């Protein structure tokens, strides 16, 4: 897709809410439009190996590249599945040597993901480092904590809405996607400052939250539509929103990396972006906790969650509280989308992929309890990441869903929930 084409879609987003998207006029074989990436670094004893030819092939198609001065290489490929990656041994400089003779062929597994790293071992095979289980545990725990914090701010959004309105919002994930997409638009496409981009994205999602409450949920509450009917409406709204996002932003994964610095903490390799994201998540969670426990509106929110008619009879404007809750929930969820997009790259379906993990988190903590949702999200994040030590990483979301099912069976009120809430 050309720059001009992208500009059209950007204008369409800004000036109209009707679906419109750029004509995809991309040539059939422009590698920069390929959605899948295979990458790696060639080095022997920390010395980079430049100029080695590398080819990725699948079903007769092949794409090649050369390692750069840092030994790094990247190949963009058009389709998913398994790709065979081969080094041209004739191009390896004389001072370097592969660890084993058959080590020039690797496999990139792009079945469930759009990025795969392929390692080629150089030098003496005996000194190849392996990570101990403890090191892996530390690394995975860190990753899980990071993922869990991000889930937590989106999960609090779900639980606030559920608590005050009783709605299981299946369209919640689309607010994550919208946050990530607006972030990409501002940060990567318009090259705006990262903080301004993030603020615009959060503001846009907040506006979307206000809009959907005013246009859909408030009228439906007035009609006294049943909660389960509202849930199915939210499923329909989620599908519509998802495909509008697909039409607007197309199906490719939005890369927002660049400009981040790698930081090493013991065995953990992370980046400044990740550390700052975690800090922002913790601050946001702390802010929500203070808001709910220390401010008048926060206390009123908890009163509405507990018993809406009783709260109304004490003079609390329930509709106003619900409106504030929608704004707050949308802002938090948009923030989760921004942080997700910056760290993990986002596509149009990311919100729906995360939605069931969010439900798992909320259910684990106890539907309708904000603190519970945060605790549940951290547990889900940790379990999902740590499970990859023993299980194939393509099954990590299955772990989260199995936890959801088991929790509902064993303790449907969740870890911190009250029994009365399950009805």
């Amino acid at each position: 897709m050309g720059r001009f084409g992208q500009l059209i879609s950007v204008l369409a987003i800004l000036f109209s809410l009707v679906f419109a998207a750029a004509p995809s006029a991309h040539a059939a074989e422009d590698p920069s439009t390929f959605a899948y990436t295979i990458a790696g670094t060639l080095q022997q004893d920390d010395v980079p190996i430049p100029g080695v030819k590398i080819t990725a092939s699948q079903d007769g198609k092949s794409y090649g590249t050369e390692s750069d001065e840092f030994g790094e290489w990247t190949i963009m490929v058009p389709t998913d599945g398994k790709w065979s990656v081969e080094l041209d041994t004739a191009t390896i400089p004389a001072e370097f040597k592969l660890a084993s003779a058959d080590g020039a062929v690797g496999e990139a597994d792009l079945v469930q993901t759009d990025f795969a790293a392929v390692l080629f071992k150089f030098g003496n095979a005996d000194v190849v480092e392996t990570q101990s289980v403890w090191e892996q545990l530390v690394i995975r725990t860190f990753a899980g904590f990071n993922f869990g914090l991000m889930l937590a701010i989106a999960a609090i959004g779900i639980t606030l809405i559920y608590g005050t309105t009783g709605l299981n919002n299946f369209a919640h994930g689309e607010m994550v996607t919208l946050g990530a997409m607006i972030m990409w638009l501002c940060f990567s496409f318009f090259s705006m400052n990262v903080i301004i981009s993030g603020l615009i994205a959060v503001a846009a999602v907040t506006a979307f939250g206000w809009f959907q409450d005013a246009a859909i949920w408030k009228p439906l509450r007035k009609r006294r539509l049943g909660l389960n009917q509202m849930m199915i409406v939210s499923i329909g709204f989620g599908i519509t929103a998802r495909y509008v996002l697909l039409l607007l932003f197309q199906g490719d994964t939005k890369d927002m990396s660049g400009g981040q610095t790698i930081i090493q903490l013991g065995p953990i390799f992370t980046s400044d972006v990740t550390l700052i994201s975690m800090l922002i998540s913790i601050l946001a969670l702390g802010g929500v906790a203070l808001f709910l426990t220390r401010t008048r509106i926060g206390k009123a929110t908890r009163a509405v969650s507990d018993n809406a008619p009783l709260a109304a009879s004490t003079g609390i404007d329930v509709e106003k509280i619900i409106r504030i809750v929608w704004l707050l929930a949308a802002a938090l969820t948009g923030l989760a989308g921004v942080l997700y997009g910056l760290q993990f790259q986002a596509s149009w379906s990311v919100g729906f992929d995360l939605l069931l993990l969010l439900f798992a988190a909320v259910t684990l903590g106890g539907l309708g309890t904000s603190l519970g949702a945060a605790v549940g999200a951290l547990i889900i994040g940790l379990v999902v990441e740590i499970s990859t030590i023993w299980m194939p990483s393509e099954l990590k979301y299955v772990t989260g869903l199995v936890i959801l099912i088991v929790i509902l069976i064993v303790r449907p009120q969740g870890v911190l929930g009250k029994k009365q809430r399950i009805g």
Partner: protein
Amino acid sequence: MDLIGILSLAGNELISPMTVGYILCGIGLAVHFGYTGLLNFGQAAFAALGGYGFAIATLDFGWNIWGSILFGLLCSMGFAAILGIPTLRLRADYLAIVTIAAAQALRFYVGSSTAEPITGGSAGVSQFGEEFYGLNPLPEDFTWNLGTVAFTSDEIWMRIVAWVVVGIAVVFILALTRSPWGRVLKGIREDEDAVRALGKNVFSYKLQALVIGGSIASLGGMVFVMSSQTNQPSNWGTNFTFITWTILLLGGAATMLGPIVGGMVFFGMMTLIESVLGVLVDAGLMPFLAIEQVAQIRFLLVGLILMILVIFRPQGFFGNKKEIQFNG
């Protein structure tokens, strides 16, 4: 494309095995939701188990067609029991979340490389219909034209069998729902506690409804995969379940005519819309829409139709508003 061509394509869609697959899943969902009030959002899993069970029994066990059908049904019955025993005691919205999560977990699992030796991983399984097409009694040169769409002998055989299955399923469900057993189901839908007060085992009835509806959905899954003889995990995403819900609510949830007419109208209409949009895009009248995006409009419409139906006409074409009960 001319008008006759477009109408022929839409007409083909009315009777296609894919439509029948969805209709059977809709009939199963009518048993779950329409008659019993269960919010099952994992219908794709029952259909997938039918398709996978049949294919695996044929290819890996070398069973004949009847054994394979039975195995597919057993798989989905087993799934219904595993899913239903712990969850049918939960509130309706929890059941919706658990079923959708279980269906997604199953789909991720069968598509993973861990399950690849059995299920073929993300590529799925194919070429399991030799025996089915071998049973075709129609002569090989027997063909039929519907406007501009021509059917081969095998395609006609597939469609005949598919609609016979629908007929059998409808008669079976109508007989069941008009029996005393069916009246208990409707009682559960209307007021679970009242039925319990009458001394009925509500849980057991709900489980039976889940198993029967799931079995019909797995027959639908078999029909769905048989026409192309391919079965991939990507067939069974949440969109499959959402389309099933849409056609059921379009026709009317507590009726048998509902899912059938709903399915035919839905897929006929979608083909008409997509063809017309395709023509308009080709003619350059839709500058903001690329030709490959036309298919995405289908799901956008699914979402809109689902919302509008639930809000304004939850009983669909044929239903009785009093018979729609979302809070079971």
